[in-house]
């Protein structure tokens, strides 16, 4: 195991962490802000992948798919928001879990009806296919693109949340909703906007992951668990928590797979259990 090996595995871990980040940031902010447990977040990711594949087939362009899929998923999210989510905000976590569980079933069967049961794939655009020489190692160009995309989203969200007025409003609302309302913040609009951004990011993650993975009807369920683990390890509602959680889970999964494959399946769960025993509210919860 030379230096090249470690660099490659480091890049793999970073790439996987970025994917987890794109998914978990939406989920955690929706948790933190709306107090809404959206188990259908993984299903939105799945829809992003399938819609992206169709969009790429129709337009003939990956880049069009990369834009269209998040927009489509956001529209679906907006419909969900007005028909279900908004109504269920005060219905308690049990009912939210139940409805979003139901939504998973519905979305999976809709995908089966629309796209069939056979797994599908999406080709990376020509510019991003192949590998890039990084000096010591060469690494798949598309994966480098994913790392860049994740880093870009991370930077934008950080700037928006910490430097802009909207960010201040979001943080205030996460901290104390009643106080935020009293300060004249239109909490309803803010929630809607945040929910849409979360959906867009889930759709973006789906279409962006499609060239690396494959689109299957089980992908929404199987990504849900690692995403929830990231959110819970990081602590609800905070950008920092999502970043830290994504990197912890991404690196543990990748390096256990590379070095201790026998333990790869179980290590993340052990980690989650350990964090919850020692820090029952996660590592970096938004509210003290």
């Amino acid at each position, binding site marked *: 195991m030379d230096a090249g090996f470690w660099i490659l595995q480091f890049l793999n871990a970073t790439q996987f962490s970025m994917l987890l980040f794109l998914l978990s940031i939406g989920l955690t902010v929706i*948790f933190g802000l709306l107090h809404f*447990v959206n188990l259908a977040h993984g299903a939105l990711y799945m829809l992003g992948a399938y819609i992206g594949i169709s969009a790429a087939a129709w337009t003939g362009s990956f880049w069009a798919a990369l834009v269209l899929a998040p927009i489509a998923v956001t529209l679906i999210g907006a419909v969900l928001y007005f028909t*279900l989510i908004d*109504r*269920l905000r005060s*219905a*308690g*976590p*049990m*009912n939210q*879990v*139940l*409805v979003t*569980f*139901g*939504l*998973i*079933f*519905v979305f*999976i*069967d*809709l995908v*089966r*009806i629309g796209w069939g049961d056979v797994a599908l794939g999406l080709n990376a655009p020509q510019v991003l296919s192949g590998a890039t020489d990084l000096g010591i190692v060469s690494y798949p160009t598309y994966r480098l693109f994913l790392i860049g995309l994740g880093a870009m989203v991370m930077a934008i969200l950080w700037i928006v949340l910490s430097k802009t007025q909207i960010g201040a409003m979001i943080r205030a609302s996460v901290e104390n909703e009643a106080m935020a309302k009293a300060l004249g913040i239109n909490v309803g609009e803010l929630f809607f906007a945040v929910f849409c951004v979360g959906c867009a990011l889930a759709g973006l993650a789906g279409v962006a992951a499609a060239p690396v993975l494959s689109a299957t009807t089980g992908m929404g*369920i199987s990504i849900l*668990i690692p995403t*929830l*683990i990231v959110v*819970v390890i990081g602590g*609800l509602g905070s950008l920092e928590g999502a970043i830290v959680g994504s990197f912890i889970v991404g690196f543990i999964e990748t390096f256990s797979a590379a070095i201790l494959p026998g333990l790869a*399946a*179980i290590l993340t*769960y*052990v980690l*989650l*259990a350990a964090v*919850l*025993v020692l820090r*029952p*509210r*996660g590592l970096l919860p938004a509210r003290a």
Partner: protein
Amino acid sequence: MFFQSHARTAVLLFVLIGLVLYAATGSYFAREIVVEIAILAILAISLDVAAGYGGMVSLCHGAIMGMSAYTYAILSVKFGLPTLPSAVGGIAAAAVFGTAVGWITGRTAGIFFIMATLAFGQMAYTLIFKSRWLGGDDGMGGLDRFDLSWLGINLGDSLSFAVYTVVCLGLVYLAAAWVLRSGFGRTLSGLHSNEDRLQALGVNTVIHRARALGFSGLLAGVAGILAAQHTLYISPELLFWTVSGEILIVVILGGLGTLVGPIVGAVLFVMLKHEVSEYTNHWHMVVGLVLIAAVLAGGRGIFGQIEYWAADRRRAGKEQSAEAGDA
């Protein structure tokens, strides 16, 4: 707090007798459905004890049941023990697993508790899935049912087995109701409604939560034994988290915190699934839509909603008679 109202007794007896009659008069497959309902109902009661009364929404009840089924299989198949001690061992293993999860997660609440239980359940699933000794994903066969021939009962017969599972369901209900009405049941409800105050009173809530989940696990263990005896074959599927999710659905669909509701939920869920799957392979979608509709209709679950209406009418009735008294 748990009350065994007349309405609850009536619905319970109605369902239990209905299940026995359905099994007795129906075809072979009707009996399969009765067994499926009874096992799911026991699991749902077990989860209702934890979630509805103790506020602990667990996503590891499938794993708890699976621990019981696997222990039963290990003791009877691998170590050649008779079925009865194996079953006791299986139920004990489920109770111990439940207690351990309850104790370790004692300080977590809400979504964190859900996730923690999910983690422990998935750990158990993964370990069993990976175990070559236990057959991995191919599972284990060669199990036996109880030999009740000294009672003149042949559990190998599908009708006898169906009735046996319904009897177990009745016993589990009685056990749950009895425990919930005891002092422990009151502490449990206190945990749910006001944990901070109990802590302030010097009550060690972690121990109580562990005991509650242990008792809940014991009941789920009964379901595990029945599941193993039903198919005479077990596989890691039993422990997968979506099984726990399904149990949760049944509880909420029927009515959380009513103990009878989960039984009603199990009946409806299994019937709905079989009826719809006759017509389409997309029965999951129909179940999903029913779930959403059930929540939008009030979120109290079917039995919970009926009790709510009944209480509403009683309240209205009282107000009327009070007015009459005034006049």
